[in-house]
């Protein structure tokens, strides 16, 4: 039926997922990491934003399973042929959105096009807004749109809640099994945990967020079956589809870049801090110089060079998707090369402090080698900073992709991203009446992603803070007073 395609970014992304799972297993074994992550779990805000992030990640991962569909066999030929375009699992799921294109702009949930056209009605040429090919095409009467929307919203919300109830029911059942508690009691403790004596994982926040997501998803899906929920763009593509496709780009930029920054920052920071002297000077000069070069210039130069290389070697790439993918990876690499300095500086400072600590001195008194001291005594004590920096940098990288694509040195123009959507919106905003929905869709989704990432990062930072203190529970204070 189809042939799987493995893009480099897919491989890297799935490898990172595997890495995260391995890290989670490692964290469960390490006492201090488990306790810190538990504190993340105890925070309602963190768990709610983690749920939203998980939704984004699952969209991005679905979009990272690529394949080429098989073309129908030609008459008299036994040769198997595959389509030149590369699709993903997400494309298959939302085929309606991808395939049902309009001619040009249409507003969200509209039934008519955004611009007037000359058309023939009853033999008379008139200029009017034509009906859309797909949006609301099932309606007999245009006046029935609102009631149709309401009906669809209600049924969508219902199915969303049904899905939610199933998911939560199974999850609670699993918890009840794990704890060996009766089902009803588990429900009660999840909904109203005993905060007076314990600090439970904030499952309630997860389930409430999940309910909101399910309802929104259900309504959107119900509407999307008959309308363009976020409208269409200049060439009539569904904006909701574009936004969903952009999620993968944002996630890739936010995570793959760290693959480049991390080894550089950790290795150079450790060496500079621990060895000191000549090493320290050299590394400090390196990042001071790098920091003094305007980042945008460096990125622009390298991205354009990469583009030339891609253009002059068409034989390297079988499909357009691979070409776009190469450019995305190049962008990640370049962003990584310019953004390791901050973390490196932090790690150098912390290493300077750690190497004077008594346990490092004690290890030196045993004649333990430098490399081993760095690996055993210093690196584990730096990991919390690395982790915090990674989570905090994620949102910054997503935003910087948007900015770079906006000025034309970001991802390939054939690749969907929030940056290219915003770039396109530049012209749309100058129209009268204004075409606002592309920008609004990109804005809302990016806000949700970045805000969730930032809130999660805050909780992670708090949980890994060695001076972490609980806020006193207010109820108790009142009782005491």
């Amino acid at each position, binding site marked *: 039926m189809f042939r799987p395609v493995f893009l480099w970014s897919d491989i890297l992304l799935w490898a990172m997922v595997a890495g995260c799972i391995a890290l989670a297993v490692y964290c469960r074994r390490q006492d201090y990491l488990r306790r810190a992550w538990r504190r993340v779990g105890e925070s309602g805000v963190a768990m709610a934003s983690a749920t939203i992030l998980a939704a984004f990640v699952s969209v991005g991962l679905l979009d990272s399973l690529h394949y080429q569909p098989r073309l129908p066999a030609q008459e008299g030929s036994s040769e198997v042929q595959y389509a030149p375009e590369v699709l993903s699992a997400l494309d298959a799921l939302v085929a309606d959105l991808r395939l049902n294109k309009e001619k040009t702009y249409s507003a969200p949930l509209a039934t008519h096009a955004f611009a007037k056209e000359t058309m023939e009605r009853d033999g008379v040429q008139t200029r009017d807004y034509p009906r859309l090919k797909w949006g609301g095409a099932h309606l007999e009467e245009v006046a029935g749109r609102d009631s149709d929307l309401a009906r669809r919203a209600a049924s969508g919300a219902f199915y969303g809640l049904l899905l939610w109830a199933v998911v939560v029911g199974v999850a609670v059942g699993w918890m009840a099994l794990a704890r060996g508690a009766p089902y009803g009691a588990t429900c009660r403790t999840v909904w109203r945990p005993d905060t007076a004596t314990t600090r439970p994982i904030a499952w309630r926040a997860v389930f409430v967020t999940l309910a909101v997501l399910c309802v929104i998803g259900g309504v959107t899906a119900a509407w999307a079956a008959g309308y363009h929920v976020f409208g269409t763009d200049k060439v009539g593509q569904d904006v909701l589809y574009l936004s969903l496709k952009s999620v993968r780009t944002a996630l890739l930029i936010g995570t793959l870049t760290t693959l480049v920054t991390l080894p550089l920052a950790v290795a150079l920071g450790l060496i500079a801090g621990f060895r000191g002297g000549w090493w320290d000077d050299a590394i400090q000069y390196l990042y001071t110089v790098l920091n003094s070069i305007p980042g945008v210039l460096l990125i622009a130069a390298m991205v354009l060079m990469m583009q030339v290389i891609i253009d002059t070697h068409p034989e390297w790439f079988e499909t357009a998707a691979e070409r776009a993918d190469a450019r995305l990876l190049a962008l990640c690499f370049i962003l990584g090369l310019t953004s390791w300095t901050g973390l490196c500086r932090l790690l150098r400072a912390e290493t300077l402090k750690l190497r004077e600590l008594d346990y490092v001195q*004690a290890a030196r008194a045993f004649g333990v080698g430098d490399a081993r001291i760095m690996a055993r005594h210093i690196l584990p004590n730096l990991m919390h900073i690395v982790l915090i920096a990674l989570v905090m940098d994620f949102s910054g990288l997503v935003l910087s992709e948007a900015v770079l694509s906006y000025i034309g040195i970001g991802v390939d123009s054939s690749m969907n991203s929030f940056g290219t959507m915003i770039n396109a919106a530049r012209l749309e905003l100058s129209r009268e009446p204004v075409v606002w929905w592309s920008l609004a869709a990109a804005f809302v989704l990016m806000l949700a992603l970045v805000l969730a990432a930032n809130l999660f990062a805050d909780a992670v930072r708090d949980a890994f803070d060695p001076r972490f*203190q609980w806020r006193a529970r207010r109820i108790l204070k009142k009782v005491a007073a």
Partner: protein
Amino acid sequence: MSGPDVRHVVEPLLDVRGLIAELDTPAGIARAVDGLDFEVRAGETMALLGESGCGKSMTAGALMRLLPDVGYIAGGSVKLAGRELTTLTEAQMRESRGSDMAMIFQEPATSLNPVLTVLQQIGEVLATHRGLRGAPARARALELLNAVGIPDAARRLDEYPFQFSGGMKQRAMIAMALAGEPRLLIADEPTTALDVTIQAQVLDLLARLQRERGMAVLLITHDLGVVARMAHQIGVMYAGQLIEQAPRAAFFTRPAHPYSKLLFDALPDAARHGRGELATIPGSVPPLTTAFTGCRLADRCPQAWSRCRDEAPAWHEAGEAQRVRCHLYDPAETARAAPTATAPSTVVADGRIEAGQARLLSVRDLKVHFPIRRGVLQRVVGHVRAVDGVSLDIRPGRTLALVGESGCGKTTVGKAILRLIEPTGGTVSLDGQDVGSLSRSALRSLRARMQMVFQDPYGSLNPRMRVGEIIGEGMGALQQGGDGMAVARLLEQVGLRADMADRYPHEFSGGQRQRIAIARSLAVQPALIVCDEPTSALDVSVQAQILNLLGRLQRDMGLAYLFITHNIAVVEHLAHDVAVMYLGRIVEIGSVDQVLGAPRHPYTKALLSAVPRADLDAATLPQKLTGDLPSPADPPSGCHFHPRCPRAQARCRTDVPVLEGHDGRQAVACWFAD
């Protein structure tokens, strides 16, 4: 200071009744202060005495209503001059802080704001509470600085805290506290971070200010010596409760509560002069999250019986004005109370191994100079002479104590001997091998012969490694195996359980951590251990355990110790020989009896007399040092001690005295030694 045991008939200034303060911790609600009753009269010093974690600092915080975020007052009343403090609004409380009551903190380095001048900081208090600004404020601040004995106060007013030494900072802090003319001064471990000679100055200052101003002082401390010197009334705290209250004289002649007695017995003390075992208090303070049923000390008390575990003791009278929370003093239990004198510390046969003449460690003219670099090109503009020509010898099985104030270079000596810091000059030889000239690989094999135990048990263990890994690391690095068996044996040797190897350091108390650190250094079977203030971060009872352990290991294994400390009492207990350091040089060296019994150098004499003793007749102070330790970057010419020396003459300013001893007396570096 005489101990005025005057009974005041006046109303108490501070009246605390049933005070309860709680902390909301991840482990549950910890009742850090549980039903505290006490009062402080004007002109009187009340000392709250207790080990760490007993709730003393929380009490101070509750009185000032300055509790950590997770803390709150859960009950009771605090009356200051008849005014209830617990019900005041935060705004009223702010007014009361600083004017009615003021607080000085333990760490002078962090309790002053580094970016404001001293005048600005005192001026802030004067403006808030006295309404003084401009010239009058400056005049008042000057008076205050003079009152706390800061020389050249007019110039010092406009200086920043970093230009002050530790003792000066604490004086400035006291001046700030006095600026609001408080009636109650809460001093939370005011001298713990200071050296003994500076501590003596600050304690005298506090006592004088109290006499002059008739202030009430609530002194919070763990140091029986400080209590003996300062307090009129004493309250002993344990696990959040007061367990004994007594006037000074009564407390120091007959401490009533078993815990108080144990505290005295655990103190290493010259009077007993034993190198025997100190009395220890088994176990540790129970977590305050426990719901107590009986006496909180029951599990650690040598005299506990079944009633102690089932019934919380009430207050009983134990002599004039002395109250104690112990069943032994229940009139119904008189039969038990009588015979139980505390067991005297068991005297073990003197552990002095008759030392062979072979020197284990021989240090000759050791110098460590740190370059001071300035400017763009990092040119060397001078040297900090941290260690400036130190010579000493240690024989197998002996302990040499290296004594001196902070900043005198004693820790640097220890690290330079182990080559953790590269010496600038001089030789260190161990078993006749010159440590300084060894290659890296040869040095590694010699590392097994000497090890180090560090001061801070919290900083010396990697929090990310299990105890077993920590202990095994040295063995692994020096190719001595390091299997589970060896680790288990070591853990048992230092009095821990073998199954603790799988735990992380944070699960252990300070004393247990120090045991782990000792096990780590023992792992490679060294002949010499450099102990860098191994007990200074520990409570008295835990200190006794560690000292006993060190003594036992020395007797059993013939270890030699270089014991770096500022605590003279520990020296008396543990050491065979003493070297006194001042500003990078040894000024006096000899056997314990000689140096501590008949000191010859004026600095040694001053140091010894500054140590507060935990007994009543400690008040005599024949010699007091003025001023601070000079900077080792710019040491005085000639004899380093001459600017502070009462006997200094012209010769001391120009000629460096040589360390020498005659007629079997200890060597001393002084032109005018006794």
